[in-house]
């Protein structure tokens, strides 16, 4: 970790198998500082395995460097700079809120008790409560409070809002953006609720069957992909341009194109920026078939 221009995460030929299934198949990618990267893929595509490798929670083949550390050998030191919220509430159920704060404050050199307590003041969580007495949404609030009080350089979120209602989900991402994120921090997030993170992402990575199906910045995605709403009379012309996907809405066809000139598409019909969800569905076509 000598050069600031070095990526936060650098993976080369990352592979991992469970028995005969290949969870990661020679995956290479870089994640730069100050980005919010959405790691998106169908169930069992290898998202969680990739995150586990980054966090030093699993063995793997290939090269991986996170903040200049080898996560396999230097997990404890890496964790001084990395925070992690897993897909379900993983806070131990027996612990009291005050004990959790005392423990993290004691073992984490970059934790600010003031920040954590200030954040908790906006919630109904009391210091004497045990985690098992909290609702799922409150547990995530507590975990987020602990994590946001740590001045970490990389935050990894694995389905952080799974099972939460819309109010908690909204406020989760709002606090993350307004109270936590800045240009020195990097966030990697996996989620199935793509619509909810779409507007906060700077980068998009699609994973499919252990391989990277798409890795691009959101700007690049906006430039490369376009959705066109086409009247039936021009549908054949649109199909000739080999769209990624076609769907019908109110008697019109909506085509998704990759890397076709705007001018040509504009002649066919009304242009839109495709949603990540539509892009995802088009890219993953046939995954479960």
């Amino acid at each position, binding site marked *: *970790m*000598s*050069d*600031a221009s070095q990526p936060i995460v650098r993976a080369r030929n990352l592979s991992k198998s469970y028995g005969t299934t290949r969870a990661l198949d020679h995956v290479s990618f870089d994640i730069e500082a100050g980005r919010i990267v959405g790691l998106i893929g169908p169930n069992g595509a290898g998202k969680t395995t990739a995150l586990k490798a980054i*966090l*030093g*929670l*699993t*063995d793997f083949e290939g090269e991986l460097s996170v903040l200049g550390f080898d996560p396999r050998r230097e*997990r*404890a*030191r*890496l*964790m*001084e700079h*990395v*925070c*992690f919220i*897993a897909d*379900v509430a*993983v*806070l*131990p*159920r*027996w*612990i*009291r809120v005050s*004990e959790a704060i*005392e*423990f*993290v404050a*004691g*073992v*984490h*050199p970059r934790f600010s008790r003031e920040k954590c307590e200030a954040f908790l003041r906006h919630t109904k969580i009391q210091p004497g409560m045990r985690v098992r007495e909290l609702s799922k949404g409150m547990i995530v609030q507590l*975990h987020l409070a602990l994590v946001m009080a740590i001045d970490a350089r990389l935050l990894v979120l694995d389905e952080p809002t799974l099972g939460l209602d819309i109010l908690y989900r909204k406020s989760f991402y709002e606090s993350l953006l307004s109270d936590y994120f800045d240009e020195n921090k990097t966030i990697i997030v996996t989620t199935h609720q793509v619509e909810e993170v779409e507007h906060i992402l700077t980068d998009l990575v699609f994973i499919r069957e252990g391989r990277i199906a798409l890795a691009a910045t959101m700007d690049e995605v906006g430039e490369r992909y376009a959705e066109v709403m086409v009247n039936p009379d021009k549908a054949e012309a649109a199909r000739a341009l080999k769209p990624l996907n076609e769907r019908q809405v109110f008697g019109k066809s909506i085509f998704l194109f990759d890397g076709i000139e705007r001018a040509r598409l504009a002649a066919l019909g009304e242009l839109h920026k495709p949603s990540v969800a539509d892009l995802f569905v088009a890219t993953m076509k046939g995954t479960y078939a």
Partner: protein
Amino acid sequence: MNHQDSATTQRALPRFDSRLGRTLPLMLKREYWEHRGGFFWVPVWICVAILVVTALGILTAEVFNARANVHMGFSLQDLHEHMTANDLAQAGNALDMAQLMFGALTCVSLFFVLFFYLLGALYDDRRDRSVLFWKSLPITDTETVGSKVLSAMFVAPLIAFVVSTAAYVVFLVLVCLWAGIHGVNALPAVLAAHPFGMFWRLLLTIPVDALWALPTIGWLLFWSAYARSKPFLWAVILPIVAVAVNGWFSMLGLPHVGGEVALKSVVGRLLLSVMPGSWIGNGAGMFGAHRFSFGDDEHVLTIFDPGRVYALLATPGLWLGVVAGLALIAAAIWSRQRRIETAT
């Protein structure tokens, strides 16, 4: 970049000591928070139960006394009137035995507490997935396992010792009050006892208990870290089956480990050594060359004389156990680095 250079220097070696000095007490505290019930409340309730039984005994004696003027046990009246130096010494001895009994009974409960604590220590957090939270903190797996080893060796036994000592003090107060009601001054008997001598003698057995317990600590922690499910079955049934199969092989004249006794003693050391004082009277088998037993009419003070207790350190059995224990603990750390998921 400057920022990162300074971060690198900060990670230089001298930081290690100060960091461990800060995190270790907290990690032991964490174990206590999670296991307050076993470490603190179990000895408390055991002692409360003994005290209640004692109080009930006193009450019963009083009731019988009042009804028929029957003397139960030693008569306080006699004590009062014919107290000789010998009687006093015997009363003192009885009190010393009572002090030992408070310690011993809490130790029996400590055995069960420690056994199940160690079996769950590296398994329960994998089962409820909170291991993912602990592993998201800058703590090495060696530190995690180490904090559990130290809790089992020292934290829980010391808490149990403090509780049983406090209970003995309450017991002395009860006895003095009872004697006082009958106009007997029990203080001479208390003075004839050796509460302080007993206190530090029993305290000094804790390090010996701790070293003696290492093979069991290592064995249980290893299965706790390694088993995908049911660590109890692996840790307990496996060695028992091994002994049974070995016995069966020897019966059929097939190749087997010679010396039934030796194998049983190894299994005993793997499973039962967390019982405080289990090294007492361990005379047989490969691991127990040392002879240490209760004499016929030796005073408890002599039995727990540090010179005799620490003679155990001169026996190979203890050190073989320590080496085996450390190897198993290393295996537990190795497992902890690799195993996260459980089967259930």
